[in-house]
């Protein structure tokens, strides 16, 4: 090839490569063979790390309706429990206040902790609470980074920051390992959750039935949930006194992290954050800003389970309309997505906050009751085992019994009942139904993904999916089965529906028992170690509700996971290292790399200050200058020793009534002027008294009187 064309082609190739999605090669990171420890008995260690990013990131989970984060309400934490036995076996459980789990994050953390603590990918489970008020940009598949929220893109800084923080917390939990006593138990929590896709669930054969203890007065969608709140209570030996004291717990409960309305623009730990704090402050009643107790509140088979939010807590979505101004006689019409009114948004977000408080208290109280009840049955015995596999979904589709080409159905684009997107109900030219609605099956289409109505498949077959969708979806599933005493836990990288989860539990339990393990129950831990959207039963898949449309590899997925979990439950082991085939390298396409997480732009940060404070009705406002614009709330260390800002009563006691980890207090970034963060504080707990806003150790504001409305 001669000079100029070659240069031109090379330039085009470089340009295309630069504009194309980022590809990553992620190594295996399995654990080394454990070395027997000096301590012969069961040990447990806890840790917590603040993972609240700065404003500017996208709040993932609600697709296009996910807002850009303007600040935060309840801080986001990753909580860690490490369990170790006398044989040197260690298992690390992480539950992070994040929207989706990520195989990339899991492998990156494992790569660090396998060296520092002997905890590789097979001994590490990173699950997430699925709060839809958490950041994106760290996922394993392009589709979730580029379409997870209204702020698009993959940001390596987010991956690196989360990796370092979580790995550091695991290391801290290992350092915290102490002799422990544990107890498993469970309790039914009714009325806090409901089945959101009931018609799909009712397609299952046999028809699902409510547990015998379901309250009779509840509607069907409330009675058909799995109400089990399972808990492993952990007490640690106090090194000073030698006595065992309550230290924390690990729980699984099936409930979407969707208490917040999709239009929420604050980072927030949602209902799960309230439940976590409720038990932590119950255990550690005298704790400061961050309690010593740690409660890992993980998600179960919540694929079709919503929190019991009221309809008025869901905001209207933006509508496609013309811009009604300045289109003069000879200028063209401009189009826009018009937001609902500010009044409407404030009203539905307020309703959502109320629902979060009620549900959080309901579930939190149940957790407290269960925790207290388990104090009577603590034991220092907890047999541990683990099995781990990485499924290459595309390459091994035939062997796994799934479709080789992942696809999303049209109902996925519509969003779930918790958060419909702006395209719900859209018809081409207002007339032609293109399937943008819940329950939109396509029964006439042959092939592996039959019933799934795909983008423009009526006109172009599978071509649009192959060209623009399939490549953005995940290619791997990491599956872990843990044995923790009398329970086997199947950790699955997705959102398993209630019925699919029930079937998987049965298969896993039968298999474990057949292998001779004395286990009494099986649990599904969803949102763990990766994300491949939903996992429905084959019957539910035919309804093509949101969950079925989002079952990427077709109707065989639930059965595939059931078989895999059963196989792993029969091969649980401890004290060994797994073959490299269990964790082959992952080749990931993570989407378009963008500079999303703000970088610090100011090297000289003046001391924080309070500009003004005022009250309006029951809300206290303050304008503050706090740190650099791109600063993480906790930039060094694991957790903040104290709050960044407090509200105190203006009397001699100076009692603290709120701080920046309170559901009633919002910190919202107003501007980044001069590289500094200029914030607005809103606290909606004022009750006719006089208050001051305090930046601890720096300054108290002038008093401000808040009259009772």
């Amino acid at each position: 090839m001669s000079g100029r064309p070659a240069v031109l082609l090379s330039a085009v190739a470089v340009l295309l490569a630069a504009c194309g999605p980022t590809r990553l090669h992620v190594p295996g990171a399995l654990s080394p063979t454990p070395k027997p420890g000096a301590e012969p008995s069961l040990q447990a260690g806890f840790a917590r790390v603040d993972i609240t990013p700065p404003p500017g990131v996208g709040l993932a989970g609600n697709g296009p309706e996910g807002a850009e984060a303007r600040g935060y309400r309840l801080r986001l934490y990753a909580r860690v429990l490490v369990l170790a036995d006398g044989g040197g076996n260690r298992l690390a459980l992480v539950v992070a206040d994040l929207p989706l789990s990520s195989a990339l994050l899991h492998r990156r953390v494992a790569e660090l902790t396998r060296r520092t603590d002997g905890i590789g990918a097979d001994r590490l489970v990173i699950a997430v609470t699925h709060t839809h008020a958490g950041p994106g940009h760290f996922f394993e598949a392009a589709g979730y980074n580029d379409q997870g929220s209204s702020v698009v893109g993959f940001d390596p800084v987010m991956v690196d920051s989360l990796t370092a923080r979580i790995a550091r917390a695991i290391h801290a939990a290992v350092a915290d390992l102490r002799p422990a006593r544990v107890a498993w138990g469970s309790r039914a929590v009714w009325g806090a959750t409901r089945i959101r896709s009931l018609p799909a669930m009712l397609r299952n054969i046999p028809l699902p039935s409510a547990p015998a203890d379901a309250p009779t007065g509840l509607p069907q969608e409330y009675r058909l949930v799995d109400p089990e709140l399972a808990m492993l209570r952990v007490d640690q030996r106090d090194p000073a006194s030698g006595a065992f004291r309550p230290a924390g717990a690990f729980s699984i409960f099936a409930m979407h992290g969707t208490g917040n309305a999709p239009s929420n623009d604050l980072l927030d730990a949602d209902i799960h954050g309230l439940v976590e704090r409720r038990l932590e402050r119950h255990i550690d009643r005298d704790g400061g800003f961050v309690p010593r107790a740690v409660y890992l509140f993980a998600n179960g088979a919540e694929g079709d389970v919503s929190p019991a939010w009221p309809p008025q807590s869901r905001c209207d979505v933006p509508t496609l309309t013309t811009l009604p101004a300045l289109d003069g006689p000879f200028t063209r019409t401009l189009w826009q997505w018009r937001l609902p009114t500010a009044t409407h948004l404030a009203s539905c977000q307020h309703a959502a906050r109320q629902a979060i408080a009620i549900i959080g208290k309901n579930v939190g109280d149940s957790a407290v009751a269960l925790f207290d009840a388990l104090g009577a049955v603590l034991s220092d015995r907890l047999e541990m085992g683990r099995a781990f596999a990485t499924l290459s979904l595309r390459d091994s589709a035939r062997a796994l019994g799934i479709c080789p080409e992942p696809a999303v159905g049209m109902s996925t684009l519509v969003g779930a009942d918790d958060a419909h997107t702006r395209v719900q109900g859209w018809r081409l030219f207002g007339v032609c139904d293109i399937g943008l609605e819940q329950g939109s099956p396509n029964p006439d289409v042959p092939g592996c993904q039959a019933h799934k109505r795909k983008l423009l498949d009526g006109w172009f077959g599978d071509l649009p999916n192959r060209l623009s969708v399939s490549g953005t979806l995940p290619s791997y599933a990491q599956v872990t089965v843990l044995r923790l005493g009398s329970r086997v836990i199947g950790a699955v990288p997705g959102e398993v529906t209630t019925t699919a989860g029930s079937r998987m539990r049965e298969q896993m339990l039968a298999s474990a028992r057949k292998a001779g393990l004395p286990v009494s129950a099986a649990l599904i831990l969803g949102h763990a170690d990766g994300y491949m959207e939903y996992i429905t039963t084959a019957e539910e898949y035919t309804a093509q509700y949101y969950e079925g449309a989002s079952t990427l590899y077709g109707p065989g997925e639930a059965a595939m996971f059931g078989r895999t979990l059963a196989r792993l439950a029969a091969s649980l082991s401890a004290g060994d290292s797994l073959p490299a085939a269990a964790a082959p390298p992952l080749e990931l396409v993570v989407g378009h790399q963008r500079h999303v997480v703000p970088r610090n732009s100011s090297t000289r940060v003046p001391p924080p200050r309070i500009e003004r404070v005022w009250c309006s009705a029951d809300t206290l406002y303050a304008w503050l200058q706090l740190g650099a614009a791109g600063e993480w709330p906790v930039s060094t260390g694991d957790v903040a020793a104290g709050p960044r800002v407090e509200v105190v009563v203006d009397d001699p006691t100076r009692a603290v009534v709120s701080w920046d980890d309170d559901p009633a207090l919002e910190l919202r970034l107003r501007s980044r002027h001069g590289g500094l963060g200029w914030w607005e504080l809103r606290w909606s707990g004022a009750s006719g008294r006089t208050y001051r806003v305090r930046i601890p150790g720096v300054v108290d504001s002038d008093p401000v009187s808040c009259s009772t409305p």
Partner: protein
Amino acid sequence: MLYVLLCLTAAQFSARTDLSAGGRYVWHGISRAAGLVAQPSLAVGLRIHRFSLESGAVLHYELDRVSAGELSETGAGGRQLGEEDFWGRASLLVGPTRLNAGVVRYGFRGDPSTGGLGPARNTTEVYAALSISSSYLNPSLEAWWDVERVRGAFLHAAFDLPVLGWPFPPYAFAFVQGDMGLNVGQGPNPARPGELANFAGRGITHIGLGVGADVRARRVSGIGWATLAFGVRSQLNLDDATRVNGTGRNRDFLAWLWTGITVVVGGEARERR
């Protein structure tokens, strides 16, 4: 006085500037330039609740050098400003319906001696319009009245129909546009034969159809946004005046490409998404 002050505090200011380019300049269905044209425009508006006052100007530059007999406002040899229009209007929003009433002053800068349109063609039109906004069909009906040179009415019906709205940034929209003109009084007037006429006869003047796409190129939160648009328009010419495509040349059907950049600040464009 207090009421006026209160209204002014609720007023929203907005401004918009466009730079459009197209393969043809068509006004009321009549082709006025057949080469490449550039049309910069500026508009400002003040909205108080549902009522707004808006004003603007649009310039029409011909970018091709024109030969004798070719369709042009500037005339042969031109590559210059052919027309400048100024407009003002009042607008009332009632739910999804918008009522407009306004005036447009047309000024021509061409050289009549080389086939262009000169100041003798300057004129003024008043108009009233009704448009309805919905997620699908956005119809509008306009009634124009030339009050100076032509003295007669022209009706214009149009619709915009979105085909697709891409929900992720950068937001993109695809749409279909159609329009139709109906001359009811801007044809030759037998009672005043010296008066100018825009059309050859009464009735439907043209039927147009186009498709386009609009991409939100840049948004600055709290200030406004910029869009990049492009599309193709076509037109079936039914009146002899709309068929004219140069001296002695007629065309029944036209198609041309267009593109444009628009920057909007203030008003609804300040919204965060």
